[in-house]
C-alpha cells in the first residue's frame, strides 16, 4: 500500500521482521493460528456440510468421534449457578477442557480456537490500516466483573443468562446451525472494536475470555522475551499484541527480573514472536527463564 512509501519515517508494523525473516517467517504463528481456528471450525462443519461426522455439536458442548465429550466450563459454571447439576458427560467434558487450558494457558482458547478472534483481529487490523485513533476503552477489569455478575444473574434468573446474548457462542453456533439475526450481534462486536474501543471486546469485556484468563495463571506454555537485550524499542510488539499490558514486565523488567510473560491475560498467540525484527521473543515454557 502507498502508506509504506509515503510514511517512510514509520514503516509498516513488522516490516523489519519481513525484511529479515521473509513473509512466512514473520507470519509463522499467525498462519498456524489461522490454520488452528479454521481447522477446528472445519471439523465442526465437516458433518453438516459433507456428512463427515468427526465433531458433533458446537463449542458450548461437543462430542468428538462419538467418545470424547468437551464442554465449555464457563457454561457449566452458569448452569451450576442456575441450580442444575448436569450429567457426567458435561462434567467430564468441562474437566477435560479445564485441565487442557490450565496446562496450555487459558487464553489459548481465545487466540487459537475462538471464532470471534477472527472478527476482532479483522477489526484491529482494519483499525490499524485506517489509522483510527481515539474512542472510549473500558477498563480491562470490566470482564471480571461481568463474569461475576453473569453468574449472579444465572443464579437469580435460573437460566444461563449470558447465553441469551453471548456473541461468541452465537457466532460459532450460527456458523454451524444457522444465524438468524445473530449476524447483527457479531457485526456489533466488529464495529465496537473498529470504531469505539481497540481490542475492546476480547481484551476488556468478554466474560468468557475472563474465565479463561482465570485458568491462565498456571500455564506451562509461555512466551519469553529471551533476547530482550536486543530490543530496539520499535514498539511493533505492543502494536500487534491483543493484551499489550502483558509485555512490559517481561521485556522491560518491570516488577520482575526474568523475561517470561507470566500474565494470565497473555493469549500465547505468538504474534510478538512473528513481528519482532530482532527475534526477541520465543515460545517456551514457564520454567525456561534463560536469556540469550
Amino acid at each position, binding site marked *: 500500500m502507498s502508506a509504506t512509501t509515503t510514511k517512510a519515517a514509520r514503516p509498516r508494523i513488522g516490516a523489519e521482521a519481513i525484511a529479515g525473516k521473509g513473509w512466512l517467517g514473520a507470519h509463522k504463528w499467525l498462519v498456524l493460528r489461522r490454520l488452528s481456528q479454521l481447522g477446528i471450525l472445519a471439523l465442526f462443519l465437516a458433518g453438516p456440510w459433507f456428512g463427515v461426522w468427526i465433531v*458433533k455439536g458446537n463449542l*458450548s458442548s461437543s*462430542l468428538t468421534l462419538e467418545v470424547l465429550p468437551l*464442554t465449555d466450563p464457563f457454561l457449566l459454571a452458569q448452569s451450576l449457578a*442456575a441450580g442444575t447439576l448436569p450429567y457426567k458427560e*458435561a462434567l467430564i467434558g468441562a474437566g477435560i477442557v479445564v485441565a487442557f487450558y490450565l496446562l496450555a494457558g487459558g487464553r489459548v482458547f481465545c487466540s487459537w480456537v475462538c471464532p470471534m478472534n477472527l472478527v476482532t483481529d479483522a477489526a484491529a487490523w482494519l483499525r490499524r490500516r485506517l489509522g483510527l485513533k481515539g474512542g472510549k476503552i473500558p477498563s*480491562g477489569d470490566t470482564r471480571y466483573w461481568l463474569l461475576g455478575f453473569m453468574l*449472579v444473574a444465572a443464579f437469580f434468573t435460573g437460566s*444461563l443468562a449470558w447465553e441469551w446474548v453471548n456473541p461468541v457462542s452465537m457466532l460459532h453456533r450460527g456458523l454451524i446451525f444457522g444465524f438468524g439475526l445473530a449476524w447483527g450481534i457479531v457485526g456489533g462486536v466488529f464495529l465496537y472494536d473498529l470504531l469505539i474501543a481497540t481490542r475492546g471486546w476480547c481484551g476488556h469485556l468478554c466474560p468468557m475470555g475472563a474465565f479463561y484468563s482465570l485458568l491462565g495463571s498456571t500455564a506451562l506454555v509461555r512466551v519469553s522475551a529471551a533476547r530482550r537485550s536486543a530490543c530496539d524499542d520499535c514498539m511493533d510488539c505492543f502494536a500487534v499484541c491483543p493484551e499489550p499490558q502483558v509485555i512490559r514486565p517481561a521485556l522491560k523488567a518491570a516488577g520482575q527480573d526474568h523475561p517470561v510473560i507470566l500474565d494470565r491475560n497473555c493469549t500465547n498467540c505468538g504474534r510478538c514472536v512473528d513481528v519482532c525484527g530482532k527475534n526477541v521473543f520465543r515460545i517456551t515454557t514457564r520454567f525456561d527463564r534463560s536469556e540469550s
Partner: protein
Amino acid sequence: MGDMQDKPVGQGGTSPRRRFLREVAGVAGGACLLSLGVGLYAKQASALPAVALRPPGALAEGDFLAACVRCGLCVRDCPYDTLRLAELGDGVATGTPYFAARQVPCEMCEDIPCVVACPTGALDRSLTDIGKARMGLAVLIDHETCLNFLGLRCDVCYRVCPVIDKAITLERQHNPRSDRHAMLLPTVHSDYCTGCGKCEKSCVLPGEAAIKVLPVRLAQGSKAEHYRKGWEEKEAAGQSLIGEQIELPVRGLEGKSYGDTRVLPGQGPAPAPATPARPDSGLDSGWKP
C-alpha cells in the same frame, strides 16, 4: 485483579485509595448494569411460543433453560431432522432445540436418540419409553373447519396417530344437520397423547391445522379437585350414596335402556295419513274438533 499499567499511585492531592475505589465502583457499576439488563432480558424472553415444542424428555421450561447448554447434539442425533436450534429472532430462547409440529413432527423413535445425546440432562434420561413422552398435547382446536365436525369422513389425524385408538379416538355422534348421519369426532385423550404432532402435520386443511399440539400448560385445564363426581364416588363406595332410586317410566321409550333417546328408523312418529283434499273446502288445515 489487574493491569498495573496507567494507574499512577500516590500523586499527592487525591488519595490513591479514593481514586482506586472510584474507578472500581465505575467499572463494577457498569458491569452490574449490563448484567441486570441481560438478566431482565433473559427473564422476560424466556416464555416459549405456543407453536414451539421441546424435544421428548425435556425438563419443565424453567429447569430446561437452566440445564440446556445449546450444543445441538440432540439436533444432530435426530434422524428425521425434526429438531432445530432456535436462531436469534425465532422467538425461542436462542440456541435451544425445538420443533414446530406443522413443519416436521416427532417420529417417536423407540430408542429416543435425542435424549441419549443430551450431555447435561436438559433432556431427562429417565424417559426410556417414548410413549410416556409429553412434548405437548393435541387439541382439536377448530370445530368449524374440521372436516369430521362437518360430518365428512376425513379421519386423517386419527389414522396417522402413532397411538391410534388411545391418544385419538373417533367418537360417534348424531349429525343434527342431516338428522340421519353420524359424525365421527376425533377426540384426544391426554393419558396417551405424547404431543408428537403427527396429527397437526397431516391435517388436510390447506394452511393452519384444525388440530394443533399445544404446550400441556395451554392445552389442559386444571383439574377441579373440589368437585366430587357422582360416578366416581359411587364406584368407590360400591353403591349409590343416595340409596336406591325409583326409576320412572319414560313414555314412548319402553324397552330401551335408561337415557337412550336414540331413534331408529321406523320408530319415529307415524307419518300423517294422506287424505284426499276435498274440492269444496279450500285449504284443508287438517284440524279436527
